[in-house]
């Protein structure tokens, strides 16, 4: 299979899988889950085939159609997108294993629809990762919003539908109202929307307009959840936990920050943005989001909502790192996409496992649960430690790069934000860990549960292991992401 074929296959495979899942769902649940796992496995296999090609400096691309002169549906693989695609497709396998345990354990309705829409969402995610221009990216971005809506509204009761409305409304309104005008503006000014190393707007857009266009992009890409367009993310927590885990800790939210990073690196151009006045606000907006979201997380009583606000804060790490506009910080942004993904998916898996086994969702209910669910809570602890950024976990690596980038730019606002938020992260995660391991379980009502079903436990053990392993084995990722900063800042 050539690289071009692999790109097309990565886009088509999940869709074919979705069809297969829909058909298999009529036969039996076991067959349906088998099809899901096979699809996930073959997707990861296809995507990972591309990694060596990109590592060696190849940039395979394929143009499917030219809709209008200059507007193409094209997919080009570059290091950032490669990383994102490899991450999302790899974690889909783990997540599918987890889904089997979770969905069966909770006896959820409409499971076939769940697996079908999940596969469609992954197709859209692959499209976002490989998109070669803004137009293609926008198509896949909207497809992802629409495909995840049925997953968020899965339960279908009144409260869920109300939250799903916030989700759909906010994401669609920002993308059509801000993102799309920004894209049209870009095409109008630059004559193209192709992602090009060094950017396409240099010499074409100057002055305060740069800051304005950047604002249209950053707030239009609502999936990046920079305040004040973050409210859809806590709202999305009404979805079943596997959805929160893969989509709202990895695929959807990372699609947002990935897009912001890509726009900064390949549309504006890091050097162009660094030299323009009026674009510094992004760094402050991201810093504010980090601190504010962490403070809000401190006050949460519901575990999943706490994780959601933690995600809002962690996403802005990526945006802030990209906005520092220094090579080390751009690498930090890319690595943080991976590091946060491993940690946060583990935390969500643990939250879902607790819900499945014990039907507990609130923090105060977690007293002493570590003794009943030792594997789950060990994984949770590893995830929490990674969120704080303590070695030897993934979170440390990315924070290290972001701080190094901040000092390289002599940007003490960014450095102080990271330090302050580390303290805040510790303040809301460590009490949970302490409570789970060292406090006594209340005597009434009597508890008798153990661990969640084994697929769920297996999945969260794998991701916890990955969180640790990334601390030691991050060389390939670093090497891959160095390529995007070649030529910056000279």
């Amino acid at each position, binding site marked *: 299979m050539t690289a071009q074929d692999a790109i097309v296959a990565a886009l088509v495979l999940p869709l074919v899988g979705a069809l297969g899942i829909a058909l298999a769902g009529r036969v039996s649940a076991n067959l349906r889950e088998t099809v899901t796992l096979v699809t996930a496995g073959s997707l990861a296999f296809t995507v990972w085939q591309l990694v060596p090609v990109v590592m060696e400096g190849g940039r395979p691309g394929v143009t499917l*159609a030219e*809709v*209008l002169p200059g*507007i193409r*549906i094209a997919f080009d693989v570059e290091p950032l997108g490669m990383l994102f695609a490899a991450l999302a497709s790899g974690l889909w396998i783990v997540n599918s294993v987890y889904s089997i345990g979770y969905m069966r354990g909770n006896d959820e309705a409409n499971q076939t629809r769940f697996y079908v829409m999940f596969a469609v969402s992954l197709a859209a995610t692959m499209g976002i990762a490989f998109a070669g221009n803004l*137009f293609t990216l*926008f*198509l896949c971005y*909207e497809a992802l919003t*629409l495909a995840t809506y049925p997953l968020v509204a899965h339960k*279908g009761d*009144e409260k869920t*539908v*109300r939250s*799903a*409305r916030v989700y*759909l*409304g906010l994401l*669609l*309104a920002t993308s*059509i*109202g801000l993102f*799309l*005008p920004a*894209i*049209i503006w870009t095409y*109008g000014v630059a004559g193209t929307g192709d992602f090009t190393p060094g950017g396409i707007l240099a010499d074409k857009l100057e002055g305060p307009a740069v800051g304005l266009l950047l604002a249209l992009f950053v707030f239009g890409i609502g999936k990046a959840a920079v305040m004040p367009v973050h409210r859809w993310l806590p709202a999305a927590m009404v979805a079943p936990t596997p959805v929160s885990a893969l989509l709202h800790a990895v695929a959807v939210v990372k699609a947002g920050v990935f897009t912001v990073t890509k726009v900064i690196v390949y549309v504006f151009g890091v050097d162009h943005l660094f030299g323009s006045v009026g674009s510094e606000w992004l760094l402050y907006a991201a810093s504010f989001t980090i601190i504010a979201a962490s403070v809000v997380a401190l006050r949460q009583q519901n575990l999943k909502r706490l994780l959601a606000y933690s995600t809002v804060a962690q996403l802005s790490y990526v945006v802030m790192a990209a906005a520092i506009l220094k090579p080390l910080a751009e690498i930090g942004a890319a690595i943080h996409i991976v590091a946060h993904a491993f940690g946060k998916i583990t935390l969500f898996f643990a939250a879902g496992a607790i819900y499945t086994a014990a039907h507990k969702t609130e923090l105060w209910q977690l007293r002493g649960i570590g003794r009943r669910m030792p594997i789950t809570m060990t994984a949770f602890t590893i995830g929490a430690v990674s969120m704080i950024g303590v070695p030897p976990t993934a979170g440390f690596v990315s924070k290290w790069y972001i701080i190094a980038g901040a000092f390289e730019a002599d940007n003490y606002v960014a450095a102080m934000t990271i330090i302050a938020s580390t303290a805040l992260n510790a303040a809301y995660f460590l009490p949970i860990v302490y409570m789970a391991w060292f406090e006594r379980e209340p005597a009434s009502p009597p508890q008798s549960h153990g661990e969640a079903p084994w697929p769920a436990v297996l999945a969260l053990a794998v991701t916890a292991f990955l969180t640790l392993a990334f601390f030691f084995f991050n060389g390939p990722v670093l090497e891959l992401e160095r390529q995007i900063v070649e030529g910056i800042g000279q």
Partner: protein
Amino acid sequence: MSALTSHLPALQVVAPMLMAPFVLLLRGRGLPWAAATAASLLAFAIAIRLTVVVTGGEALAYEMGSWPAPYGIELRVDALAVLVLLVVTGASSAALIGGRESMASILSAEREPYFYAAWLLALAGLAGIVVSADAFNIFVFMEISSLASYVLVAGGPDRRALPATFKYLILGTIGATFYLIGVGLIYMMTGTLNFADMELRIQDVADQRPILAAAGFITVGLALKAAIFPLHVWLPNAYTYAPHVVTAFLAACATKVSLYVLLRFDFFVFQQNLTAHAFQFSAFLMPLAILGILVGSAVAMFERNLKRMLAFSSVAQIGYMMLGASLVTATGLTAATLHMFNHALAKGGLFLAIAAVAMVAAGCRLGDISGLARRMPWTFAALVLAGLSLIGVPGTAGFISKWTLINAALELETGGIALVALILVSSLMAVVYVWRIVEAAYFGQPAETGSGRVPAALVIALWGVAIANVVFGLAPELPLTLSAAAADIMLGHVR
């Protein structure tokens, strides 16, 4: 070219027209519908065949009764005409295929033959307007299609349709009369009714007062029929109270055909012969187009009746077409003709979806569709697709024409940015009113509804149109080439 192909311009009109009296004789539930659908599909097939021929090269000219052009009636099919023919016959076919049960629920068996005969006459009339190259012939077909569509609009049991039809009839007749007065004045001055002949002969008498008066009468009369703001007052009620399937048919094509005649007359006859006509044309129509876009969208945002909301949206969309045309540039005219095609896809799809919804819901107000999306997931998914196309989201047909229009505006030396801002703002207004439908259907409390079911044929027709919105959004080559060729033809007469 085969013998049959050369007769196709005439057959395009004759086939549905001859089928009409035949339908009138048919008795038995469903038979008139079947005959009308067959005739409509035949007309659609002819339109497709004509498209193939025209995209292959030259325009097709046809002499009725073999009388040569200035003396006999000439029919002429070029790129501009086939684009509108595709819209007319396609809309009629989709509405008929999907509309059988919807119409059967409001028509008694003995009235069915009359209704479907009127439908075929409307179709024949609209197609006749498009293929005619003769100013008076256009008037005749305009009357045929108008009278038939009054019957269609008033065809349902809703008695509010009667005053709506009356208003439609009075204003439609005024429009047609104005057109006839204008044609009469030109005939008086030039002695010809054939467009090509008129274009030459009018040079000698250009800028004389009767010709100027004729230009005014024709422009206003056709603007009235095309529902250009502020002459749109007949449209909302007519669309709202007509049977749903009829609305789907007429909303997709009726006003566009009048707009087509307006463009054709103006660019073929007036533009190059009247002093400063291009400027007058722009200066007169552009403000109206802008006002139409803003007012139509604003009213639609606050309207609670779905059909009326979409009718006001049509007023705004006609504004887009006029805006493109009033730029009098190749890109602008391409955008205008392209939007005729793409808007027909979007609006036709939306009204077909409304027809489906009305089979289940108690009515067509926002409150009536509350929470219905859970009962009718397929219908509403198609409605959302067509709605996205109406907004102009990338990946749908609506984006292509709005993008072309934005490019046309950016080509202007002054004021282009303001027009782009206008287009973006009105697109956001479209987001608001489409979202209100989505909000009610997906997030409302499920209302008490009847036990009706949507027939499979309607779902198929609806999805056919919805998919066409996506197909022509991702592969817009066919309408894009046709509309670019149409713009060339129109500008070719100006130079």
